[in-house]
């Protein structure tokens, strides 16, 4: 059996207590009884997928033929085509995840694969990829059509060449993956959730999307249920009551489904052996013992981590606050509470609370109807607006707004294969969610009159939050390459409004990148829980932010428990230990403790009250 993580923020190695890479490694499972160790050795292989490497391999194997197709179907010369193929792509994880899984299964000889996926939204995108592959093959086929027609005209009957074979192969890959995912005998989704209202709401949307796609859901697994307390305990009882309500809602929504419950497990991780923690963990701690960039860079910042009384250390007003972290840690509630408190504190400022996680929870947290427009939140200070970004909708709107310009540009390009290019333009781009989020940020910060003073972003979980932060750079490379191609061919194809738009986009991307790398204007608040896996992921997240040059002045530890009975006492002590470990790794980063409340805070007033209790 092979177990693989496709989440760009891998935790599989942490959970197994071993160092993993993109190549499957064999794990030794210590036998529970008298079974010989040797007998069970090699039964389980594990890997953490490296999407960039996998995509490079996938394209590399087909690159010459894909380049030929691009040259035949457009008027680009080989050098232009090479430049385009050398660019990084957004959305790599979803593009190549499934194809790579099949390759790994084939190479390792494993008949069964267990996949630890990224959180909801991006897994739905990953599972939709076979259809996108087939549409890509169709668009390539159109590009090839012209070549076939010319060849037939001059050479009689057309003989398919290598490019045709690649188109067929991509089509077949998409079709086979689609069939595999929809075949209940060969694959199934086990949906894991927490016994919390927001997690249940996300499950409703997610499972519905899977059903619509014809992908079988085998069972629902509710993880981390609070067990009955050993003695009467108000803390455990309040927790169990809140969990009970969430579970009840789940049962009502999924009457025919198998639901499995797993209790909160307080035993430390490292189930495979008593190996020391992976080396990378020690490396991270060492890294973070060194100064982490903070506003002003002078030790631990004051509680004014969000800009204190509204001014940053250098007198600049912060423009962007990102909230990010592992799935299920409480990013949305933290972002919403902060937005409400800041809007109250700065009544004359325009503040936007923007959710860029396609699996939105903001409306559920605020208990307010929200949508893809910026709208006031009932009961919240009037300066606050909130939006749940709908990326496909945004892309559709962008496409219909700019279709005229693209058509106009294609018209001026003469006798090109317009149909083929239209097919390409119509393909949903990879990394759609991140592209739409970047476009929404540029619009909110620089595009409006008046612009927002502050944008608070509730991001998708870690891996894709980092992808979002990388996206302006990736987009800028594409836009600059397109600008330079337009300049190169301007004698044949006039620049027009298409070029104007690209120029505008290039400027916006540059401005956004500068804002994001300015510690006085942009801060990333990492939200975590006092547990081993979130802590390790948080340390890696902070290291990645450091690499991207984005200031992360504070970590919010959510759901810090009060002590009650001996069981929650034990849990609270385990949390304290985790918080101490986190502090060791984050000498120059403020740690904010947000208490656990049961049921979790919902609605404007409850969120504000909860936000005021942070210490």
């Amino acid at each position, binding site marked *: 059996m092979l177990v693989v993580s496709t989440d760009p923020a891998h935790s599989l190695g942490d959970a197994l207590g071993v160092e993993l890479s993109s190549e499957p490694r064999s794990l030794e499972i210590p036998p529970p009884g008298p079974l010989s160790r040797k007998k069970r050795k090699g039964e389980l292989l594990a890997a953490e997928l490296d999407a960039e490497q996998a995509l490079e391999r996938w394209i590399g194997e087909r690159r010459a033929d894909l380049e030929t197709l691009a040259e035949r179907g457009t008027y680009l010369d080989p050098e232009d085509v090479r430049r385009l193929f050398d660019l990084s792509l957004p959305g790599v994880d979803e593009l190549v995840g499934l194809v790579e899984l099949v390759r790994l299964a084939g190479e390792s000889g494993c008949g069964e694969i267990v996949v630890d996926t990224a959180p909801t939204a991006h897994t739905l995108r990953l599972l939709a990829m076979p259809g996108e592959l087939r549409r890509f093959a169709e668009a390539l086929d159109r590009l090839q059509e012209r070549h076939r027609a010319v060849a037939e*005209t001059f050479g009689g009957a057309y003989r398919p060449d290598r490019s045709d074979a690649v188109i067929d192969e991509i089509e077949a890959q998409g079709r086979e993956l689609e069939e595999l995912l929809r075949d209940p005998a060969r694959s199934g989704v086990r949906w894991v959730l927490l016994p919390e209202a927001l997690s249940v709401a996300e499950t409703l949307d997610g499972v519905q999307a899977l059903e619509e796609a014809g992908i079988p859901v085998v069972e629902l697994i509710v993880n981390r249920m609070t067990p009955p307390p050993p003695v009467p305990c108000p803390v455990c009882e309040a927790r169990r009551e809140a969990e009970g309500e969430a579970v009840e809602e789940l049962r009502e929504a999924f009457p025919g489904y198998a639901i499995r419950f797993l209790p909160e497990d307080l035993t430390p991780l490292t189930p495979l052996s008593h190996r020391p923690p992976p080396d990378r963990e020690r490396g991270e701690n060492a890294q973070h013992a060194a100064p982490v960039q903070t506003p002003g860079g002078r030790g631990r910042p004051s509680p004014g981590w969000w800009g204190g009384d509204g001014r940053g250390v250098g007198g600049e007003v912060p423009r962007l606050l990102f909230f990010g972290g592992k799935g299920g840690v409480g990013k949305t509630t933290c972002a919403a509470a902060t937005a409400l408190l800041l809007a109250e504190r700065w009544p004359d400022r325009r503040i936007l609370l923007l959710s860029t996680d396609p699996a939105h929870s903001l409306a559920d947290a605020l208990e307010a109807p929200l949508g893809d427009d910026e709208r006031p939140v009932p009961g919240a200070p009037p300066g606050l607006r909130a939006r749940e970004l709908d990326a496909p909708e945004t892309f559709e709107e962008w496409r219909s707004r700019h279709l005229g310009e693209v058509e106009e540009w294609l018209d001026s390009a003469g006798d090109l294969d317009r149909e083929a290019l239209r097919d390409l333009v119509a393909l949903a781009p990879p990394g759609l969610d991140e592209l739409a989020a970047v476009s929404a940020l540029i619009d909110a910060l620089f595009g409006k009159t008046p612009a927002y003073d502050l944008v608070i972003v509730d991001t998708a979980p870690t891996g894709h939050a980092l992808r979002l932060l990388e996206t302006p750079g990736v987009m800028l490379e594409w836009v600059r390459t397109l600008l330079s191609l337009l300049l190169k061919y301007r004698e044949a194809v006039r620049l027009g409004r298409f070029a*104007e738009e690209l120029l505008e986009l290039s400027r916006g991307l540059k401005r956004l990148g500068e804002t994001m790398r300015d510690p006085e204007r942009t801060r990333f608040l990492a939200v975590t829980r006092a547990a081993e896996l979130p802590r390790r992921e948080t340390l890696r997240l902070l290291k990645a932010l450091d690499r991207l040059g984005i200031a992360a002045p504070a970590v919010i530890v959510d759901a810090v428990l009060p002590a009650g009975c001996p069981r929650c006492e034990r849990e609270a002590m385990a949390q304290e230990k985790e918080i101490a470990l986190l502090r060791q790794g984050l000498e120059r980063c403020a740690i904010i403790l947000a208490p656990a409340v049961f049921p979790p805070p919902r609605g404007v007033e409850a969120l504000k009250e909860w936000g005021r209790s942070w210490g």
Partner: protein
Amino acid sequence: MIILDSLLMGGIRFVLDKVAAAVDNEMNDEGSLREDLLAAQMQLELGEIDDEEFAEIERAVLARMREIRESREEGALGLPSDARVIGVDVTFEAPDEPEDR
């Protein structure tokens, strides 16, 4: 041969459209000057030219635009100011058939 014909005729039509557009642009060439300015902005954005070079191009383009407007007002071209070239007449002359030797 229908496809070949359509490809060739498509190509010829494309060239003729370009000729018409070019003539039109040269006559009413504010549009083409705007394109020059846009191209310079793109080059500046890509770092192919610096601010000084851009300012020079901008000055030249704006001066040329002023000239065109002034000459248009004076009716220098002898055409109405909103005149556009919308097509080009082309006559093909087949060369004489080579004589049999």
